[in-house]
Structures are given as C-alpha cells and as structure tokens.
C-alpha cells in the first residue's frame, strides 16, 4: 500500500473525482458532487475499491413499470372501462359497440363478466349488453395510474400488489431488478481524501500525440501507474514444447556432427523387422504391438532372397536355427514401430550407392527425430504415437567402449553426468546396452537410451562389413522431462491446455536442472 501522499500521483482522474465527492455513502450524492454519470462513478468506485480505499455495497430491489401496451391503456383507458363508459345506463347490441376494437372485445367482455359488471342476454341473433348496478358505479379513475412512474415493490399496498400481478399476467406491467450501490470510504480512503484536499496536483493522465504537440507536458507530472500490475497477454505465437524438445535433440546431434536422415511412416514389415533379423514369430511383431494396415508392400527381390537365407540359416551356428521365413509376412504393411527401420533403409541406400561406384559404404554419423507408432492401450506414460530420436555411427573397428563414450558425451550435453551402463537384449544388436542416468530430484535411475552394435546378421545381407553403433531415445519422454510434466496427455494431443502452452517456461537443455 503506497502512502496516501504517493496516492495523489497515482489516482486516475475518475478516482479522484469520486474520492473527493464520496462521503455520505449515496451514489446519487457522488454523481451530483462530481458531475459524473452513473457508469463513470461506478468505474471510479470500483477502482478505489481495488486499491482498498473504498467499499462498494451492492443492493437490488424489484421495481414495476408499465409495458408499452400498459402505457397505451394508461392513455386510452383499459378496454373494459371504455366499454362500460360506452354502455352508460343503457343496453347495446354487441355488433354496435365502437369504443373497443375487435381484438380487444372478447377479453374485455370476459373481464367484465368475471367481475359481475355487465349482463348479457340473447335477443334473436343479437347479443344485448348492459351494465349491472355495480358496473354503473365503477370509478372512472384509470387503475393503471399508480404505475405511471416505476415503483419499487416496497412502496406498493397489498391491493396494488394484487393489481400488479393481474397486469403482469395481461402483459400490461413488467418487473425489473434494479441495482443500487452505495459507496463507503475505508480508513485509508478517508486519509487519501484529506491528503487530496490538502494538495491536489495537476497530472497528465495519458501521454497523447496532442500532449506532445502542444508541449503541455512541460513542468507537469504524470500520473503514477501501479507498476506491479499483472497483465495477461493472450495473443501469443509460440512453438509447441514437444517440437521445442525435438529441436533440442536435433541441436545436440548437429553439434556432434550428425547428418539428418528421414524415411516413411507407412512401412513394410521387411524394413521394420526382417532386416533387423527379428524372427517372424517374435512376440514384438504381434498385432498387440504393431499397427498392421491393409495390403502388402512391394519388396526388393534381391533383398528378399538374402533375408530369407539369413533368417533360415543365420551366419554361423546351425543349432541356433531361427525359423522359417515367409515373404508374405515380410511384405505386410504397417505403421513404423521404431525409426531403426529408417536407419536400415539409410544404410542400404548408402551401401548400394557406394557399390555402384565400386566402393564400400563411407564412415559417418546419422540421426533422425521420428514419428513412431505402437498399438498399445494409451495411458499417462504410454501413447500409441510418439517421437523417437534415432542415431547411428558407422566406422571401422568401432567398439562397445566407443558406444559408451558417445552416449556419455550425449548425456552430458543434456546436463547429465552420472550414468550407468547395463546389458540388455535387442534382437538386432549385440551387445545391447541401456544407459541409465541418475535423477537427483527423484532419487532414481532412469533409462532413456537403448543402444547397441548392429549384429553381423543384419548387415551381411546388405554387404556391409563395418561396425555400426546405434542408439534410440524416447524423445516424447524427454519432452516430459524437460517440461517437468509427468503425464504425456498434459503435453501432447488435443487435451493440451492453450493457457499453459502460452505461459509455460521455455525449455532449457538440462534434464537434471529443470
């Protein structure tokens, strides 16, 4: 709370006017004292309330007034009264009545008969109408008169209340909840008011073009703003955190000299599994894990025969026979389950190109941040579609120690120093290695990288005799780590909250210092 002296500089002109005129509590007095309209006084009062200088008390009361029809009848008289007037003490044929229009006549007759104010008798084809004695003595005063101006419910007599109910039912009167306000200054408000009275300063409220043009700012102060104000910005253009995270991964690869590769999402089982020497009856190939699509892909005939031989015979030991192999199974169309499919496509392409020039495939490093699919039940940590960061290094005489060295360096670029290697099993790498890192915050070891050296059985059909270190990382999982979220649903898909997307902190590279 700034001192009441500072307040003098920061009050809005509207606030000042309201503050000076406030005192009795009545809004009408403030309006009269300040010369402001009701809406302006209310705005000023609410601003003062936000500063803790005043309290605005709301109250509301039901008020009644005439509808357009009611106003018409106030002028012309109610139809039933006009009819009584016309009848006087005589008797008239219905067809001859002039004071009431055709639309009005039957409700008017109904009203009068209900209250026993007229008699109706039949004479041949005519209806004859005359006033009863009660009808003749009805006062000529218009019963709508008490609603000429809006009347609050509290000022109505019981009889008037009954009438209002009738008029409302006939569409002659309407009700309206009328709000009224009173304004009460707080202790600070009273202090501010007396300070303002002592010394008001002329302040420039807004620096406009005019103010600049006529130099009226000279020797004047500007109204002080609440500089701590929080202002939400809605129109924000921004990248999605998953894409931002993917770009972090891309950058790390690029800094380490990797070349980008890419490949199709709609794959064949051949590229997704068979070239990796994954047996055709391997559980990972089941429908429960793989999205198989209708139809079959066209396969490279040359490769088909090489893969068949490799699957049926292996390279070395016959007692480890892997099983029968079918081209039909290999040609099944599917959604890529892992981007290793693209690594193998890339290797095959590079190797075939090199062979055309009579050369062996060149050494190199390749990466891909790719979309993959698993036919799984979706939950907080498993999505059926996800990003994977894939990479391989091809060279002569590379070793498991080199793979470890690479993984260590990669992790260190993501802010991770403490890692542990663990043997595991993949059908297409040997050794196969998980790299766990220690998460200080959660006091837990996590595996983010699965890696290995491609088996000779996977490379022999391509005619590649170099060593290939390969690895994959759950990029979507990495996005959850970098955003500090636990559920994939919070950061992906249609459920992702726009408000969070706009205001979330930018990602940094460090998984451990998030």
């Amino acid at each position: 709370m700034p001192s009441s002296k500072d307040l003098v500089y920061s009050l809005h002109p509207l606030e000042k006017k309201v503050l000076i005129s406030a005192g009795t509590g009545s809004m009408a007095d403030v309006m009269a004292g300040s010369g402001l309209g009701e809406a302006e006084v209310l705005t000023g009062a609410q601003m003062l309330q936000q500063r803790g200088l005043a309290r605005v008390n709301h109250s509301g009361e039901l008020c009644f007034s005439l509808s357009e029809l009611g106003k018409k009848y106030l002028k012309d008289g109610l139809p039933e009264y006009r009819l009584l007037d016309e009848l006087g003490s005589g008797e008239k044929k219905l067809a001859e009545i002039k004071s009431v229009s055709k639309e009005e006549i039957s409700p008017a007759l109904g009203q009068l008969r209900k209250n026993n104010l007229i008699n109706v008798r039949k004479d041949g084809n005519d209806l004859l109408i005359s006033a009863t004695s009660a009808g003749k003595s009805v006062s000529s005063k218009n019963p709508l008169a008490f609603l000429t101006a809006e009347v609050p419910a509290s000022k109505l007599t019981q009889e008037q209340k009954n009438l209002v109910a009738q008029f409302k039912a006939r569409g002659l009167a309407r009700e309206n909840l009328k709000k009224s306000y009173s304004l009460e200054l707080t202790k600070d408000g009273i202090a501010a008011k007396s300070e303002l009275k002592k010394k008001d300063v002329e302040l420039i409220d807004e620096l406009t073009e005019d103010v600049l043009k006529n130099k009226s700012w000279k020797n004047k102060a500007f109204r002080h703003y609440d500089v701590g104000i929080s202002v939400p910005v809605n129109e924000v253009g921004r990248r999605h955190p998953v894409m931002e995270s993917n770009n972090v991964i891309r950058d790390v690869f690029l800094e380490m000299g990797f070349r980008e590769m890419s490949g199709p999402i709609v794959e064949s089982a051949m590229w997704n599994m068979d070239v990796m020497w994954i047996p055709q009856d391997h559980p990972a190939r089941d429908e429960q894990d793989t999205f198989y699509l209708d139809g079959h892909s066209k396969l490279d005939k040359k490769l088909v025969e090489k893969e068949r031989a490799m699957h049926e015979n292996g390279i070395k030991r016959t007692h480890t026979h892997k099983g029968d192999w079918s081209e039909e199974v290999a040609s099944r169309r599917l959604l890529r389950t892992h981007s290793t499919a693209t690594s193998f496509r890339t290797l095959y392409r590079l190797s075939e190109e090199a062979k055309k020039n009579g050369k062996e495939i060149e050494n190199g490093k390749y990466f891909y941040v790719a979309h993959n699919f698993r036919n799984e039940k979706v939950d907080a940590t498993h999505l059926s579609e996800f990003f994977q960061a894939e990479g391989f290094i091809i060279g002569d005489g590379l070793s498991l120690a080199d793979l470890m060295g690479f993984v260590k360096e990669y992790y260190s670029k993501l802010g991770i120093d403490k890692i542990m290697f663990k043997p595991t099993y993949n059908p297409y790498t040997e050794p196969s290695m998980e790299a766990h890192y220690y998460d200080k915050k959660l006091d837990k070891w996590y595996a983010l990288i699965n890696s290995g050296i491609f088996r000779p059985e996977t490379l022999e059909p391509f005619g590649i005799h170099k060593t290939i270190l390969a690895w994959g990382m759950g990029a979507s999982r990495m996005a959850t780590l970098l955003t500090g979220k636990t559920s994939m649903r919070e950061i992906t898909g249609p459920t992702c909250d726009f408000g969070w997307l706009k205001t979330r902190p930018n990602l940094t590279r460090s998984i451990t210092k998030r």
Partner: protein
Amino acid sequence: MVYVYSRISQLNRGIGRKVPIDQIKNAIIDMGMDIKGQSADADPELKIELTAEKIDLVSGVGIARAIKYYLGLETNVPQYSVKKTGLKLIVEKPAADVRPKIAAAIVRGMKINGEVLKEIIDVQEKIHDSFGRDRKKAAIGIYPLSKIKFPLKYTAEPPDKIMFRPLDHPEEISGSEILKVHETGKKYAHLLEGLKRYPVLRDANDEVLSMPPIINSEDVGKVEEGDSDLFIECTGHNLTHLDNVMKVLVTTLIELGAKAESVKVEYPGGESYELSLDNYEDEIDCEFVNKWIGIKLKPQEMVPLLNKMMYGVKSVKGNKIKLEIPCFRSDVWHDVDIADDVARAYGYNNIKPTFPQIASTASQLEFSLFRERVSESMVSLGFLELYTYMLASTETQYDKMCLKAKEDDYVRLPDSADMGTNMVRTMILPENLTALNINRKNKYPQKVFENGFIVSTNGKDGPVNDACLSVSIADGRANYTKIKGVLDALMSMNGISFEVRKSSHPFLIEGRQADVYVNGKNAGYIGELHPQVIENFGLLVPVACLEINLDTIWAMTSEK
C-alpha cells in the same frame, strides 16, 4: 516380458551354498537381468525380469546355475548325459499336416514333492508363455512313466475319434468336445481351428496320452507327488527349436536330481530324433572380442571371464580359444554373442568409454529446414503451435466434417487397441478443431497451427505420409479476409507464389472458400468453416482455416 519368481533359499540351494542376498542381486543385474520386486519376508522372493533370448534362465534353477558360475563358485562347464534306452516313439504321416514335430525324453529318479512339482509346472508354463509362443511354437507334455507302455505313436486323427478323459474332467469326451467345454480346451482352441484332424499321442495299448498342444489325459497324463520317473515330450513345427526347449527342460530336471534317458523318435521317411545333452564345441578369436568390446585382454585373462559365463575352455593357442558351449545355450548365434558375454563378465561399468573418432560434417535435410521455416513464420504471425495425434477416427475426420468416408480414401487401423481410433488422419484440421473444443473455455481469439503429418492413399506404391500445415483462427470476428491475410503473409515470407480457385468443400461455407494451387497443383484449401461443422465440433465461435500440403509445395517449388 518374462518374469521368474524365486526365493533366496531356493537360489542358494541351486548355487550350492549360502550367498549374501546383495551379492545375488548384483550378479543378477550384472548378467543383464533385472529385479522388479522383492517380498518383505525372512526368505525374500525376488521378481526377476528376463530378456527375451535367455531360454536357459526361465527357472530359479537356471538362474541359480548362472549365478554359481558368475560368482566363480564353479568353473567347469556343466556336463549332462543321456542314457540310451531303445524305447521308441513313432510319428505317423497324418501328423505332418497338423503339428509335424515332436521331441521326447525320459527322466528318472526324481523325488517329486509339492515344491518340486510346483517348480516343474512353473518351468513348463514359463516356456509355454515365452519361447513356446503360448504353445504355438512349442507345447510341453509331462507324464508319469509308470502308466505308459512303449512304443508310443504320435499321429493326427479326426477329432471325434479321439476319446479320452482330459485333466480335471469327470468323463471321457471327444477331441471336438474338449475345445468346446473344457476350460483349457477353449483357451487354446484357436491353435487347432479349421483342422480336420487333431494331433494325438497314444501308447502301445492305444491309450490316449494327450491331445497336443491342448491337454493331457487325466488317467495317464497326470503327474502327482510321489512320482519319480517321467516321460516328457514337446510338440511344434521346428525340430531345432523343440530340441532347444528339451535341452533346457531336461537339464533343469537333472539339476533337480533326475537322470535323463532317451526316446528315439522316428519320423516317416527315415528322419529321427534322439535327445543329446552334449555341449557344442567352438572357437573364438580373443582379438575379435577385444576389438568388439573395446578392451585389451590377453587370451589367458579372458579364460576366467568365459568360465564365469558357463563356457568351458578346452585350449588356448595364440589368440584362438577353443570353447565348449553348454548344450542349453540356444542364443549363441555368432561370435558377437560370446563377445557380449565376455563384456558382461568383465562388467559393463568397468569398460573405459572412448569417444568414437569418426569425422563428419553435420547436415540437415532441406525439407526439414523448409518445414521449420514454415513453423517459425506461423509463430511470427502470432499463432500457437499444436501437436495432435495422427491416429484418428472416421467420426472426427469424416462425419463431423460433413464428409462421406470412402474406404479407399484413407488408411484403416484394423486392430487398434484404442477404441477411439480406427484410421490414420487424412487432414490435420479436424484434430485441431477437437483441440479448440477442449480449450473453448480459454481466451479468444484462439489462433493455432500444426505442422504435422497425414497419411494419404495417393502414393505411387500405396499409402504415404505427407507433411501438412493446418491453421485455424477461432474468434467472434474470424472470417475469410483474416485467414487469407495469413496465407498471403506466410507464402510471401517463404517466397512461394500461388493462386486460389473457387472450391466447394462441404465443410466450408459456399462462396467463402477456395483451393490453393502452387505451380498448377492443388496444394490445399482455405475458407470459413461451415456452421454445421462448427456445431458438430461443439464450438461457439466462427472459425477461419486453411490447410496446405508442404510436401506438394516443396515438390512444386524446389529446384531439381
């Protein structure tokens, strides 16, 4: 995943001495298994996760055997023998069309009490679940030997001719009835679906032993406490695979105190099978192992590491090490597998990491850079990037969009595990409209884009994925002019010239929509969303939108 549950006392019995629990656990992890749980009682039970290739570790007995070697408590390669008996199992021709292969053996001298029986059933089930591929690839049958009369006959017969009392059933029923009324029969009925004959194993008295791979006979195929001699068979399609299963199973029973004997299986046409538990002889080059792993061990230093992984070493000559590989190891396909075993014995975390010295220049794909420029352009125009899913539903992609789904227009997901999805999206827009619906309580205007993939069926050799950009403005004042301004700015920023031609998509308002053409090729659409579509997606404000195919635009504008 395959899990083996084993108590510390059981492991210690297999190891042959009491080993501290931490030492046991470390050995399990260093060998490449994982411990997923541990019970809290005085004799803790470990939940051990296996990797898929280690068939010899599917029992507590197998794991204890591996630990014993890994800790160096035993260095001589395991040796098992099989006594020949001359007993026969004749395979008849009809079996060839149904479930052609069977392997068999006998074990004697077991003391089958409750615990041992549980262990045997456990191993049998673990093998069924994993390497047996739920009995499809291998199904094991175990019988009390005393009730069986040799020679046995394995054949296939019409289901109604196979009459016997299956396990846990009160009366004799036929093969076809078993698949209809018996619990196990119903569970595995799919394995015999559509066959005119079912596999059956009979003894010399024509008594039915079992109907593989479904169920044994209650009368002659039920092992009970107190039994000591067992007949074991395994059926499937590939004899090498069955042999590997038999080797694991029989050596496990030998570890539990049995002696193995053979049964000669004779196939029509002269082929035969008889179980052998002889180890495999092989040779490895020490230098190859050093290079593959990145270590520098002399052959003599490698010998104890090989012993730790249960290999026997017969001789060392120069860099060549002559090996004996245990008969139950069916996962040693190549020298690299032996190299990996050496690395596990050495300890992965004892290997000194070295950075791979491969020189190369980094590069990005031109198309990736283009897609990235497009996203950055959209951000600069004040749009929020979304990432929605490619797996979609015909309801969202067609019905709500007022479009009619034609089977050839999209890629179906015939076996989706998620009830909500049955196709791969052909447009990004409907998925973004869903996001706008979920976010309808958030502030407006909502200006969003997604630079993602769709799958179209227009590819040369079947379905292909295309990169597309979808942009939506949801706001009380969203209209064609606003979205056209965005398209103009985006195209200008990326140096793409285009034209628009009037279109009539049912999901856009007639007269306020157009197709976008780049170099004469249709590359997408732009327009105001039809009120019916706005209503279908439960939105409350007008939406102006566009979607363009970035693959098409790239193909039409990049120089070749």
